[in-house]
């Protein structure tokens, strides 16, 4: 996605509408952020100034999980990781955030595809929901493989995808409490033995995305991956968030977070 075609980046005051625990340390937060909700593209994220933690100065980035254009709300799915996400999990509806977004390039799906394999791991799966929605709208057959540690944490998210995809999605848990026992790359590998897809999208930690990129290469299928990075500005100015690609050392926040698997130097 060239920068020129992207929705305008704004910094809007967003009110927390809902902040619910969905299992384990996972939460789904809903923010009223109409400008972002109405313009964002699948795979983009917001850069949030979380209120009440000024000595923890930096903003926190979160993928836009879902967007309700009518209400002007966005959802994001997060796990408790450190101070910020822990603090966030305690905030109540009404809390006001400065919310920068929609940020990043979003997925670029090749034209005229018929089928797509989406592989998500952990909260990274959030980056695939709006993509799946868009694909379905375009009559693409979508197969989702979702991985996580335990049933407990991923159930709610898996159900949301079930509803969207109108049938049970492939779920994998590393502790074997739900669906396939193992990680999502194993399941994706198995699938790719028997089926072919026109496009693969993968979101999760680098250990997962790099394996899926490998699988895609073997299957000779176009593949895009979501990459994370520690961020400063979130607008492309500080060069804090770079990753190495065949195009050089580029910024994850605005040149990513979505990359063609082939250009990434793993």
């Amino acid at each position: 996605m060239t920068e020129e075609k992207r929705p305008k980046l704004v910094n809007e005051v967003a009110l927390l509408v809902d902040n619910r625990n969905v299992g384990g340390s996972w939460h789904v937060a809903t923010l009223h952020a109409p400008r972002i909700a109405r313009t964002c593209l699948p795979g983009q994220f917001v850069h949030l100034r979380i209120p009440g933690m000024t000595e923890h100065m930096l903003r926190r980035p979160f993928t836009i999980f879902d967007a309700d254009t009518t209400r002007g709300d966005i959802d994001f799915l997060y796990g408790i990781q450190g101070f910020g996400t822990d603090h966030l999990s305690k905030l109540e509806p009404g809390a006001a955030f400065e919310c920068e977004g929609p940020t990043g390039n979003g997925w670029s799906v090749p034209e005229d595809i018929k089928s797509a394999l989406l592989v998500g791991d952990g909260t990274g799966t959030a980056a695939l929901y709006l993509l799946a929605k868009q694909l379905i709208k375009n009559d693409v057959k979508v197969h989702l493989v979702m991985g996580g540690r335990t049933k407990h944490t991923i159930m709610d998210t898996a159900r949301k995808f079930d509803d969207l995809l109108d049938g049970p999605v492939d779920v994998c848990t590393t502790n074997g409490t739900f669906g396939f026992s193992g990680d999502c790359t194993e399941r994706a590998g198995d699938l790719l033995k028997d089926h072919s897809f026109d496009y693969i999208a993968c979101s999760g930690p680098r250990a997962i995305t790099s394996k899926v990129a490998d699988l895609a290469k073997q299957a000779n299928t176009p593949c895009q991956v979501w990459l994370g990075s520690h961020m400063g500005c979130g607008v492309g100015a500080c060069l804090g968030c770079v990753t190495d690609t065949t195009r050089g050392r580029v910024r994850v926040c605005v040149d990513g977070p979505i990359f063609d698997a082939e250009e990434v130097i793993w």
Partner: protein
Amino acid sequence: MVQTKNQVNQDTQTIEPQYSSTQVQMAVDVAGLHMKNPVTDAAGTFAAGREYSQFVSLEKLGAVTTKSVASEPWEGNVPPRIAEIDSGCINCIGVQNPGMKALRAGDLAWLETQNVPIILSVAGHSVDEYKGVVEYMNDDDKINAFEINISCPNISTGGMSLGTDPNEAGKCIRAVRDLTNKTLIVKLTPNVTDITVIAKACVDAGADALSLINSPKGMVIDAYTRKPKLSRVEGGMSGPAVKPIALRDVWETHKAVDVPLIGIGGIRSGIDAVEFMLAGATAVAVGSANFVNPHATLDVIEGIKQYCIDQGVSDVNDLIGGLIC
């Protein structure tokens, strides 16, 4: 504490700073660099202004200071390059930059259309590299000043290693001084026993102004992985945590030399900026505060103005060095 009067547009909920236009004489002069107000950005936190122009009309700033640029492209350090510290952040970017030619053809050309004075920050591994940039850029009339960055903590040669030795620093500044008549600013590191020694050496070598501080060196560790949080182990600290160090260095330097100073370090509000001016700064630069608040530069300008109105100060220059002690 930030002195903004951001107005939330009820329709869009977008934050658009709305400021009064009460009269305070806000212009300052940094050794020939005329700034309509005392506020610029800190090199490396604002790129060449393009990204933040989505939030800030650059022409409202006193000047735009570009990310440091070298004669050749530098790829900087590997990630992770940035982490949080208490009341600040720490980075080891290592002056990634596309090199002077690509900068000039690209973002600098864009910036030159923005109707704002330009301070070009210059990096190098050696005196020759600094000279290379100044020589190459000197004929560009849209560049108003050079800021020589002899203080980056995140590169192995040049940078801070040059800026901690008064002889080396003097040599470097003399060499670039010979090449340009533009305002020559030297950016100092706080990682020295006595910053005034370096400051004097730079002024003696022909610096027109000094900017300070670059980032104090620090380190952050993840106790659970037992690893440093930055790829380069150590990095440069910024944000409110370093403000007291910066204020002290500005004050000491103000007492020691007779050139204008640009105060830098942890500034996020007009009041912070006023503190730097009272300590002797003629202008200030806003760095990592931009990451938190993309309108930080404008908020600082308005905060200074508001302070002047509240305190009956009609000319911002009256604040410079006005500390009572």
